[in-house]
């Protein structure tokens, strides 16, 4: 095993050296890592922007940024977090790296298309930056609602075009994954032997594929309206601005499942491994992933209760929203049931996964407050909503991203990190998270609207208090990331299977060789069968 060269040492295609062996690579692992670093860059940038927003909000009145700049800042924060971080984060980084490995193959089906997606992703990011320096970044919020997005003087067209390009990148990734899963699985691997992370990516990919074009055309229409002025959303010319919202959420609601499904997949991998116990309800989890993907496309208008759409629509979409909550709850139930009576081994990935379950549950349950039309009309567009989606997106997908980083880091880079610092970072992050967003729930219930740089005196205490939470949270994030990054300076020390995982990626050295496996991996009849692992670990008493 020692002599195997890792993919770091074997460029693919072999003729490229140095930086070109990365920029022109078709190796899914290298592309995954390129995504990792570009996504981390955007994430950390947007985290700092979030910190700036919070700093402004800590004190009443104009603290240090003007209302205009504030509007651009939260838009930039939202656009980066949504389009450049949370949508691509798990599929593009971990999906790229581990999906082929989990199904026992050596690459994705369309390797060149995969590289193209990365370039589109980068292009989208650069276009977003460009829009910063010409006429100012949009002040519309990440939703680009008409009529404001058509009439504001800021540079909406460029930013919208950036989102359009990023959409194509995401669509192509989905296309690639579906084809890969259908055509390149190891022969022995039937549909019910596919690991749950890959299953969740399969469901996600369908959503990416079918929902993204809707937003592509919607964003194109915004650009067309700005340049040509057809009037399709302009009431004075017969257009209907609410239709923009319909089209926008037809994508963007399914998009929240693009964000969360892979996260749920990660958690479904981590929980059984560290409980040494087969996952509870494998088939129920698979079915709920597909159910979320399908039912998730039926509920988009629950973002529009106050838009002026018909009462019938409010009733129907509210009802359906409650139905969609069921499959998510099934998963939470399965994870908790898996932990029950397992022999739990606490590690940073498990710790983050447990935080995920808690935070995501809070996010999901407050989502029901928003899904119920009666309560939503009261808290719509308040900080309650902001707190809710941070709990789901950040507490959910964001934590899943960190959990995945800590779970697969040894596999990707062949190096183990320091547990203690990881724990401290995670605790700071989670504690700070609670202190930052729980006050926002309360402020929202008290009626503080979102997207304003200033507020009435009665909201001062909560906003001030939340600032400390944000500080802890940001310190925690940087501590965790730095703790991981410094491992790159030490020699490779990680074992092939440091955790006792059962999925195929653990059957190969860390980091894996170019073609992923040294010997043909053997597919278990049931992907989460831990009898072998338990036997191996009980021989050497200290699980290391």
């Amino acid at each position: 095993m020692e002599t195997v060269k890792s993919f770091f040492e074997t460029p693919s295609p072999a003729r490229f050296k140095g930086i070109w062996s990365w920029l022109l690579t078709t190796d899914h692992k290298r592309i995954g890592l390129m995504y990792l670093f570009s996504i981390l860059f955007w994430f950390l940038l947007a985290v700092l922007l979030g910190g700036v927003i919070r700093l402004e909000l800590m004190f009443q009145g104009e603290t240090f940024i003007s209302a205009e700049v504030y509007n651009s800042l939260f838009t930039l924060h939202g656009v980066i977090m949504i389009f450049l971080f949370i949508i691509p984060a798990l599929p593009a980084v971990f999906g790229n790296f581990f999906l082929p490995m989990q199904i026992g193959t050596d690459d994705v089906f369309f390797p060149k298309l995969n590289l193209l997606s990365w370039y589109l992703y980068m292009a989208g990011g650069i276009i977003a930056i460009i829009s910063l320096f010409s006429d100012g970044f949009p002040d519309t919020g990440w939703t680009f609602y008409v009529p404001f997005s058509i009439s504001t003087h800021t540079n909406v067209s460029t930013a919208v075009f950036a989102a359009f390009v990023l959409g194509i990148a995401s669509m192509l990734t989905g296309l690639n994954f579906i084809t890969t899963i259908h055509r390149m699985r190891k022969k022995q691997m039937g549909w019910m032997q596919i690991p749950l992370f890959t299953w969740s990516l399969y469901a996600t990919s369908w959503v990416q594929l079918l929902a993204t074009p809707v937003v592509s055309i919607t964003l194109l229409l915004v650009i067309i309206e700005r340049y040509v002025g057809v009037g399709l959303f302009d009431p004075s010319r017969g257009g209907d601005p609410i239709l923009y919202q319909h089209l926008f959420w037809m994508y963007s609601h399914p998009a929240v499942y693009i964000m969360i499904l892979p996260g749920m997949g990660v958690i479904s991998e981590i929980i059984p491994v560290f409980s040494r116990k087969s996952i509870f309800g494998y088939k129920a989890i698979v079915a709920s992933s597909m159910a979320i993907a399908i039912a998730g496309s039926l509920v988009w208008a629950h973002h529009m209760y106050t838009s002026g759409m018909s009462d019938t629509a409010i009733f129907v979409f509210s009802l359906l929203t409650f139905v969609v909550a069921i499959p998510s709850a099934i998963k939470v139930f399965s994870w908790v049931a898996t932990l029950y009576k397992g022999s739990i081994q606490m590690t940073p990935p498990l710790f983050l996964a447990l935080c995920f379950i808690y935070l995501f549950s809070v996010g999901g349950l407050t989502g029901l407050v928003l899904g119920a039309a009666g309560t939503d009309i009261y808290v719509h567009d308040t900080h309650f909503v902001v707190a809710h989606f941070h709990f789901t997106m950040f507490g959910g997908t964001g934590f899943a991203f960190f959990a995945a980083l800590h779970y697969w880091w040894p596999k990707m880079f062949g190096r183990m990190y320091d547990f203690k610092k990881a724990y401290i970072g995670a605790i700071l992050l989670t504690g700070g998270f609670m202190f930052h967003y729980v006050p926002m729930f309360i402020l929202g219930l008290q009626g503080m609207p979102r997207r304003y740089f200033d507020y009435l005196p009665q909201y001062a205490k909560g906003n001030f208090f939340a600032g400390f939470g944000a500080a802890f949270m940001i310190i925690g994030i940087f501590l965790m990331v730095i703790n991981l990054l410094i491992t790159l300076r030490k020699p490779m020390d990680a074992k092939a299977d440091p955790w006792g995982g059962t999925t195929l990626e653990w059957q190969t050295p860390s980091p894996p060789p170019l073609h992923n496996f040294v010997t043909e991996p053997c597919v278990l009849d049931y992907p989460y069968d831990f009898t072998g692992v338990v036997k191996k670990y009980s021989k050497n008493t200290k699980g290391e």
Partner: protein
Amino acid sequence: MSSHSDESGKKLGMWLFLYTEIILFGGLFVLYAVYFVRYASDFIEGGKELNILFGVVNTIILLISSFSVAAAITAIQKKEKKMAVTGLATGLLCGLVFLVNKYFEWSHKIDSGIFPNSEKLVDGPVGQNIFFGLYYVITGLHGIHIIIGMALLFISLVFVQTGKITHERFSLAENSGLYWHLVDLIWIFIFPLFYLVI
């Protein structure tokens, strides 16, 4: 484990891409459906302004092109290279004629003062503004797809000619054909929605 020989995988990938195209146009059809119901009489008035003849001719042209492209794919599999080249070339030619027609149709409309943001539309009935707005957006987007499709057909034509596409490996031609048929398929719906609302 190599993917390079899996032709039906490539076809699956192409179909997945076609789905995205269907939904892309689907967004516009959502708008059409809503506005049609809201402004039925204006849409009918607008439809009368469009020249059915252009619509019919372009429909026939696209159907013929689809046929000849389909025939070309058959020809490739039957190793009839000449026939394949003829089929693809006919498809390309039809695409060109379609675009020329579109050009005349659009310029005729623009000359008579009907184009987005024109005085006639802005001051006229709002329903007609929406009708022609959608007309320009949808046929414009469709026209772009015709151009992309022609590019694909052209590449296939060259590869058939140089022998890169053979009866053993023809997924590039097959997928270009699929794309072309999809563009035709979308036109099949555009045609009645704009030219036949009488």
